[in-house]
Every structure is written in C-alpha cells, then in structure tokens.
C-alpha cells in the first residue's frame, strides 16, 4: 500500500514549478498501518508558501482515490527544512 500511495503522490504537481511533489523531495514519509490509515509527512519549499493549502488538498484528494484507504493524516512539517539536495535528478533537470 505504501508504494501505491507514493505512486499516487507523483500525480500531485506543484502548480508554480510544474514538478510533482515526490520528485521535488517534499514528501518525507509515508506510513500505512494494517487498517489502511495513511500518515503522510511532508514539507514545502518555503514556509508560508501561498500554495500550501492547495497542495495539501491535492495530496488528500489523490490519496483518497486509492481503493481501500481509510483515514488520511497529513502532517506538514518544517523540520528538517527542505533543501535542494532532497530533489530527484529528474526534478533538477526539469528546473535547469
């Protein structure tokens, strides 16, 4: 189920950068328990990112579409703060 959630998050695109949130390195952790309750720990590129509500909604909407998912707990954290090393090579190439 973890892989299914991660695959789903590839569909959530940061509308400013046009890159999905997994490749951007915004997703810190995905935990799914035996009852299919999902806990996603993620960050944003900057505190106060004006799109944070939209991206949070996008994550919840997309994960809810996965069959069998029970509850979704999304934790937005600022520690450790995001930095460019968390991006995938693909994301770096898209930006550069």
């Amino acid at each position, binding site marked *: 189920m973890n892989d299914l959630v991660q695959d789903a998050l590839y569909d959530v695109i940061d*509308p400013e950068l046009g890159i999905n949130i997994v490749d951007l390195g915004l997703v810190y952790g995905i935990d799914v328990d035996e009852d299919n309750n999902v806990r996603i720990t993620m960050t944003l590129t*900057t505190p*106060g990112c*004006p799109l944070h509500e939209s991206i949070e909604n996008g994550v919840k909407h997309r994960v809810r579409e996965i069959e069998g998912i029970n509850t979704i707990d999304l934790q*937005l954290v600022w520690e450790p703060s995001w930095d460019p090393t968390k991006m995938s090579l693909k994301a770096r190439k898209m*930006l*550069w």
Partner: protein
Amino acid sequence: MSGIKSDTAIKLPISFILCALVAFVTSLFILLVNSQELLAGQFRFPEIWMGAHFLLLGFAVMIAMGAMYQLVPVAFLTPIWNQSFGFVQFYVTVVGIIFLSIMLGINPSLAIYGGILTVIGILMFTFQMLKTLAKRKENTAMSHLVLAAILCFLLTILAGLSLTWNFAFGGMANHSSILYSHIAFGVAGWFTLLIFGFSYKLVPMFSLSHGASMKRAKPSFYMYVFGLLLLILSFWLNQSFIQPLSWLFLLIGFGLFALDIKEILTKRLRRKLDKPFHFATLAIINGWVIHVAAFFISLFHIDDPVIWSWLIFLYIFCWIIFSILGYLFKIVPFLWWTHKYAERIGKESVPTLKEMINEKVSGYLFIVFYVALFGILISTSIQSGVTLFFFLAILTVNGLLYALSIVAVLFK
C-alpha cells in the same frame, strides 16, 4: 505553520487590481493628450497632476494594497485582520482617489474633499495592515521594510493633504518643500521600501533560490531610510551639501539591496526565469541606474527642474511601475488559480500557473514598454512633439493590451 491559514480569498485583491488596471490605462491616456506639456517639462500642471495621481494612487497604490492583502499573510504567516473592513476600505479609497484625481485636473480647489476621502481610505488600510502585522511571529528585515513603507505612506498622505489644503484655503508657507517631501516619501519611501521588503520573499520563491545570506538587508534598510530622511531635510534647509549626501546614502542602500537580489538569483535552482519575473528583476537595474544618475546630478548641483522631473518620471516608470507590471503577471494567475483549481488539484488534471498566462505575449508587451519609454526619453531630449506623441500613443496602447492580457487570465 499548522493552524495558520494562508488567506487566499481573492475577491478583495482582485477588486483592487481590476480598478487599478482601469486607472493605469486612464493615466496613460491623460499623459498622451497632454504630451505638449510633458514636452515643455510642465509637470506642475493640473492635467498632469490628474494623470500622475491616477497612475500613482489609482494604479500603483491600489495594486500595492491589493497585493498586500494577498502577500502579507504569505510573507508574515498571519491572516488579514478583518476582510469585511477591507471591502469598506476598498470602496472609500476608490471613490476618494477618483474624486481627488479628477478634481486636481479640473478644479484643484475642490481636490481637498477627494483628498480627505482618500486619506480616510489609506488610514483604514494602514490600520488594517498594522493590526495584521501586529500578529506576526518575528521581526525581520522584511517586517522593518514593510512597516517603514507604511509609515512613509502615512507621511506621504499627510504631506499630500497639506498640499490640497493649500490649494483650497492657502495659508501654508513652504509649498514646494511640502510637495518635494510628498514625492520623496511616496516614491522613495512607500513604494521603494515596499518593493524591497516583498522582493526578499518573492525573488527566492519565484526563482527557487536556496541558501542566500540576505546579509545586506538590514544595512540596506538603514542606509536607504537615512538617505531618505536626509533628502527630506534637504528640502527644508538650504544647505547644498545635504542633497548629494542623501543621494549617496540612497544609492548605497539601493545598491546593497540589488547585491542581495543578485546573490539570491545566483543561488537559484530555476535556470529559466519566467518573462514577467525577469522583467520585474530588470527593474532593479533601472532603479539602481536612476539612483546613480540622481547622485551625480545632485553632486554637480544641477538644479534644472525639468531634469529632476524627468528623473522622477523614470524612477516611477522604470523602477516602480515596471516592478509592479512584472509581479502582477505572477500575482493574478496565482489568485485565479487558487480560486478555480485549488479544490480540483489531485482530482483531475489542472493547469500550472505558467499555463494561466500567455508568456510569449507578455514578453512582447514588456519589450514594447521599454521601447516606448526609450522613445519618450529621446523625443524629449530632441524636443520632438510628433515623436513624443507617437511613443506616448504606443505606451498607452501597450498599457491597454497589458491590462487586457491580465484580465484574460480571469477567463482561463
């Protein structure tokens, strides 16, 4: 961050921005029909006052207000104090600015009434922002810059109200000193400090820059504010050495800010910047060049009012207005995207912010703005009325196309 809601209500900022676009085109049209006065360097002329106030109050101030209703929650992580109060403030300010600007053009002695209404609107706005900023969690160079900008805004309207009072009832000596203080507090204080402040948030955000020190932000702030105070002082004291010194501090302050922005952009992860954002950052170079020119002109004690009037014109257009025009192409798509697509992301395919604008067209518009401004400058230098009218006409039509291209975002 949890529990803090980024205020993405769009109605209030969009209302300000749409009114501002109408004022922008109106102001350009007024300048066009008064091209002969511009050619003669007659800036202290009722119709030019009308155009200038439509441009600075109707366009630039309204945009700044609308943008602050969106950006302050983003930059300071605090919600707007009272949205309903914001709408009342919007209507009071719009009516005040329209009445003030029109009366300055057709009957300056009645401008005081529009001025009073405008002052009430601006006082409401500053009260709203101070209440909002009071809830901020930390003091940073950005908060210093924005708070100083708001203070300068209050001083600008105080000086402006004194001027309209003098038109209506007379009785105040030093009219010119008040006028120069009004201009300096407005353009160098309010607008410049505000652009400085928000640039420290917007430039790293739009360029995806990481690790810039921003170590010059505080020195830049102190230098610029000190330079501004010296400049104001120079208008009231007849000491010839003060003005070059004030411009030197303003130049250093601006230069430190520009160096910080350069460092931020050097450390960016996004190689290709959006054209509108690129245009906004180019305005910083314009601003710096104008500061260099002002310093040398004051150093050699060139007091020709025509030269200074054109320098102020270029400062307003090439630094303030160009910064606003660039950032507006980023702000409006964000507002509209949030309104239309925030609830649809993750459920269906939604456009990116870049797809909300026609970037190619924006690039052409920005080039034409530069060509028109350059043409206006050359036409004035060679005292050619025909070419001045031609380039002002290009500026006006381009301004109209710009406004329409912003409105077009609302149909995406």
